[in-house]
């Protein structure tokens, strides 16, 4: 499997506060990686550095061999197209209805025709189970529905990788399942995914690899079976003992 994302000596500081410390990792094509760890460990910042929503203060991030830092805005936009992102707070555009949300980037960035974009958007809505909501506005949808639309919106750009930043943390418990199901289907279709999550059940069953983060560094990684059954580091043991019931 070729390397899709390479993280080299990545560091990020906000003023004196060093959030990420010298991270070196590789995401291979087709891999599903779940990033877990205590809050404040730098998981979200790490994920946001992958598509440079946060500008790294040290090291670099390569996507398909191309550096994401130190390039023009235009080049960055071209690379970002291929990296879909789903946020904790959905961030749907409230001034557009569901299908317009999905069509926006294909129309404006990919320059698809309206017919193509509409067709594609309808297919995606079908895939996330919301075909009947195309004309609704985001505010009238439940959180779970909004997040599924957000996933469809990111998929509309046919990304090479999907980044999920705690996609179920803002949801009521009864809606978590519907979103995780969509993500699981996506993983099974072969999509490369990096998921920051607190859903250990999901991580266990879907991830190819678990990255455990604490104190701004990846402390331990491995396949879910090994990690959850026999964590090697004390930090991971401590963390798991607190969250596993």
């Amino acid at each position, binding site marked *: 499997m070729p390397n899709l994302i390479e993280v080299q000596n990545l560091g990020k500081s906000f003023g004196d506060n060093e959030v990420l410390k010298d991270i070196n990792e590789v995401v291979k094509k087709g891999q599903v990686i779940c990033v877990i760890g205590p809050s404040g460990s730098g998981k979200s910042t790490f994920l946001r550095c992958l598509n440079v929503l946060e500008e790294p203060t040290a090291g670099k991030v390569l996507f398909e061999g191309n550096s994401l830092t130190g390039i023009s805005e235009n080049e960055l936009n071209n690379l970002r197209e291929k990296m879909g992102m789903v*946020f904790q707070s959905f961030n749907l555009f*409230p001034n557009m209805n569901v299908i317009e949300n999905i069509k926006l980037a294909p129309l404006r960035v990919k320059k698809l025709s309206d017919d193509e974009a509409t067709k594609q958007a309808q297919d995606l809505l079908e895939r996330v189970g919301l075909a009947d909501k195309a004309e609704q506005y985001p505010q009238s949808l439940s959180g779970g529905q909004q997040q599924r639309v957000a996933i469809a919106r990111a998929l509309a750009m046919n990304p090479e990788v999907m980044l999920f930043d705690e996609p179920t943390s803002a949801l009521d418990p009864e809606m978590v399942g519907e979103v995780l199901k969509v993500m699981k289907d996506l993983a099974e279709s072969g999509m490369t995914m990096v998921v920051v999550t607190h859903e250990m059940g999901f991580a266990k069953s879907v991830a190819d690899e678990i990255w455990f983060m604490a104190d701004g560094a990846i402390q331990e990684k491995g396949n879910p079976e090994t990690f959850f059954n026999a964590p090697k580091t004390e930090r991971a043991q401590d963390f798991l003992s607190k969250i596993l019931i």
Partner: protein
Amino acid sequence: MKKKSFFLVIIVFLLALIIPVTHAKAANDNYLQKVKDKGTLVVGTSADYPPYEFTAKENGKTKYVGLDISLAEKFAKDIGVKLEVKNMNFDSLLVALETHKIDMVIAGMNPTPERQKSVSFSKIYYTGDQYMLINKKDAAHFRKIKDFKGKTIGAQTGSLQYSLVKQQMKGNDVKGLAKLNDLVIALQSQKVNAVAMEEATAKAFAENNRNLKVIDPGFDIDASQTGSAIGFSKGADSLVNAANKTIDEVKKDNLINKEYIPAAAKNMTTNGKKNSMLNYWTYFAKGIEYTLIITVVSVFFGFVLGTLFALMRLSRNKLTHGLAVSYIEFVRGTPLMVQVMFVYFGIGAVIQSLPALIAGIIAVSLNSAAYVAEVIRSGIESIPAGQTEASRSLGLSQKETYRYIIIPQALKNIWPALGNEFVTLIKESSIVSIIGVTDIMYQMQLVQSATYKGVIPIFIAMIIYFIMTFGLSKVLGYFEGKMKHA
């Protein structure tokens, strides 16, 4: 008869600092030749001063009439050019002269030594007495200066009468207003007990209002201070000499008393007969037209520039950010009135042909832009960062993000505030009347002068402004409803 106000001195002083035009031109006097070359004599006046200068309606058109205008017409004819009258506030006349917006001032102006420092005057062409206008019911106890002890006297700000009252009625309060019409309203509503006024003007007001009366309070008048003369740019001797020739002829034939004043009186009485407001609806219609032009154009440019300044202010570039902040703070920190005058007289001194309407639009647009910029900035800052992040993560550029995501949402949030700003703009645009733009406010003053009625035109103007602002509010409300999803 009227004196240069302190405000004017400051403006002229500032302009003289910035634009040293006058001195260069005074060296070789080709003023007369220049006027002949362009074929037009541009005369500045303040047409609310019957019988010297005022407006009358003829065949539905407004024209400037009065003895000064008749004299200016003869002068223009004598030097073989056309006459163009520019009407403005008396206070603005000398600035306009210094900045070469006009070739001469004829406005019953008195050649005081103070004015002679900056203006070249012709001979005196007419001398009038200084009278007092009072309410008829007070006629029994107000006869002479001494009868007014402890009373309040009104006079036009910066005028000769104002200083006469100051000097010779020391025990009295002087109430100064810029417009004679406003003074007469003040008299009728007992805010002042009398208004000091030029003889002929006072008589005109009394003739048109049964409740007013003219008295001669017996001011001690220095003859050299009461005559009226024509003002020219300092050093424009060729024009002064030509004007003196005309004045000599006029004096020889006694044209002013024989022809000009009777003609003016005729205009004043015909005006008096047509005092119904209905006869003046065209005045207001024209005012509405100009107010609308100013408002619509200024709203457009105010919005475009305001958006630009808002984006500059939000920019990470320190220079553009700094420029925008300085501009916004400076414009918000200075009165619109001063800005209007600065654009007209200041920029107008560099670009001589800048019309008052354009100057007014520029000033109001630039002013509005500063306020709109702040409204838009607050709107943009109110959009959560997540919106930008979602858009950028989809590969949209910053520009596209603003265009499709941020601005549409911000616009909806700020719509009420923006609407408020535009309503304010309609009202504030009334300030351009001071540089002679014929908006509602200006036309209202013309109607006041023409009808000798003070309050009714104000009331009509008020109603017109209200209909315009209320209508706009309704239109904006309609669009607000349409944006409910945004």
